[in-house]
């Protein structure tokens, strides 16, 4: 099994979907990625350019999967620019998944940016399980909202609710995901909270969950080289995000002194979040 996921597959990009001017989804065929668990990620090789971790995005076709990239630095921009027919390499999926307790009936999902990728796989999963959810999607501004249509399609007829919010109010509710969440948890009851997105946002979500005694799981990001627990570059306190995470629960998060405070740079030095 492990040998299996570690073996690099070379896949062809079969479709590209422009989500926003800076976010793109690349679709490819790969059975291991197709059956990835919500929260798992791939190491994506952009030949002779970079290898970067990417959450596994869902795709409607059987046997297919995708990645959704925000154009950012060197590697992500190169990946963003790959076209239909180009080859990329994959290994994984790696990491722990979001877990759902047995008698969980209603969950709250808070995501921002490409943090929505693992959350959508979760939404898709729970929709099949008939678990209801309220999904809060945050973006800075209207142009940066994506996955809305796709999410509506997935939750269609499930009784789940999608709330979009933007910092500048140009679309959906005005305000941050955390402020939306604070209203939601006041007015409604949830069994668990799931979050992925910018770390400071997640920090807010986790604190709010703790204050409301809600179990919470967050999928964290750290700089990753190996993805398999060798290099240590992804360490966060005494955890390896690639192996022990990326999904951590409220108990694990409570012991992480650096969560929401600092991350380690490519050379391993700690850098504080702005």
């Amino acid at each position, binding site marked *: 099994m492990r040998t299996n996921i570690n073996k690099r597959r070379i896949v062809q990009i079969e479709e590209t979907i422009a989500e926003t001017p800076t976010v793109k989804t690349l679709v490819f065929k790969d059975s291991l990625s197709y059956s990835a668990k919500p929260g798992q990620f791939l190491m994506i090789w952009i030949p002779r350019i970079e290898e970067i971790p990417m959450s596994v995005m869902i795709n409607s076709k059987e046997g297919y999967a995708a990645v959704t990239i925000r154009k950012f630095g060197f590697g992500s921009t190169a990946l963003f620019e790959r076209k239909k027919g180009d080859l990329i*390499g994959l290994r994984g999926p790696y990491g722990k998944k979001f877990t759902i307790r047995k008698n969980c009936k209603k969950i709250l999902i808070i995501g921002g940016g490409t943090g929505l990728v693992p959350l959508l796989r979760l939404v898709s999963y729970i929709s099949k399980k008939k678990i209801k959810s309220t999904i809060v999607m945050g973006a800075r501004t209207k142009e940066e909202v994506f996955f809305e249509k796709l999410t509506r399609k997935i939750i269609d007829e499930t009784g789940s609710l999608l709330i979009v919010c933007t910092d500048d109010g140009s679309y959906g509710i005005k305000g941050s995901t955390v402020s939306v969440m604070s209203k939601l948890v006041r007015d409604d009851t949830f069994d668990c909270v799931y979050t992925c997105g910018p770390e400071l946002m997640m920090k807010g979500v986790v604190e709010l969950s703790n204050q409301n005694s809600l179990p919470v799981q967050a999928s964290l990001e750290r700089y990753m080289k190996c993805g*398999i627990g*060798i290099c240590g570059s992804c*360490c966060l*306190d005494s955890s390896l995000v690639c192996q022990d995470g990326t999904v951590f629960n409220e108990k694990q998060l409570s012991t992480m002194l650096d969560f929401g405070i600092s991350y*380690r740079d490519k050379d*391993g030095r700690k850098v504080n979040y702005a």
Partner: protein
Amino acid sequence: MNFNDKNYKLSVQLDKIHLRNPTMLASGILGISQSIFERLYDENIGAVVTKSISVNPMKGYPNPTIIPLGGGSYLNAVGLSNPGVAAFSKELSENRNIPIMISLVGSSEKEFSKMVKVFDSLKIIGYEINLSCPHVSKMGMELGDDPEAVNKIVRAVRINTNKPISVKVGVGSIDVVELARVAIEAGANIITAINTLRAMSIDIETMMPVLSNLIGGLSGNAIKPIGIRCVYEISKKLQVPVIGCGGVSSWQDVIEYMIAGASAVQIGSILGSSGLKIFTHITKDLKKYVEKKGLRNISELIGIAHKYQ
């Protein structure tokens, strides 16, 4: 050390260093975080070796830097990324009881002196000088292949510390025993053998080398028989304490290295498939073996194979 005490059945001595058991973390593996070191210590590790540290922070090479090759073997060209001496001495400043050996890398004896001057006040058990990283120019193996450079660097470290020094050797273009001899003569107390071997992997679909650095170092399962040979040759010919390294993935491998002549072993790549708990598993199994064989202490195994001609 009381060898009759049950808890000491696994303890070993490496020059002035006393370890509760012979398992160590290999350099470059998870080696930049004090919190991780503490977790490893809770997993019953004997000692940890840090990532090789240089005077200034190094970003290392772009990814891919680490490739799992399958069958428990790995290829890496991390490029010695590390936080540098200032940040790292801060990282270790709170260390109290974890047996930490700092791995040092540099391109001149001056750099090594500089680092040791900073690190020597920390609570650490010694140094490992990396003269064998096979994929960064002007560092590691390029120096290890030059006996004069080895001599100078080891002397520079020796002059600045009373702590034990291990020199980490590899399979380069100088005989490993010769390199070890030069190191010992220059003042090293221990030899760590071996580092990774220069190797390469090419993807045949894209027809491109996979590592960003093209060439890297082979580690894991593949190199164990080479590591065993080097430990055997060095310990037999020089009769110095040797730390075995390369492809250790089970208690059996630890025993094989010790019989070959190792006083302790380092474990690296295998963590990519076993996780940190491997130290707990291995030490438990080693204890069982020692008891089954009726040994007073595991060190009785060290170098048993030397007697065969």
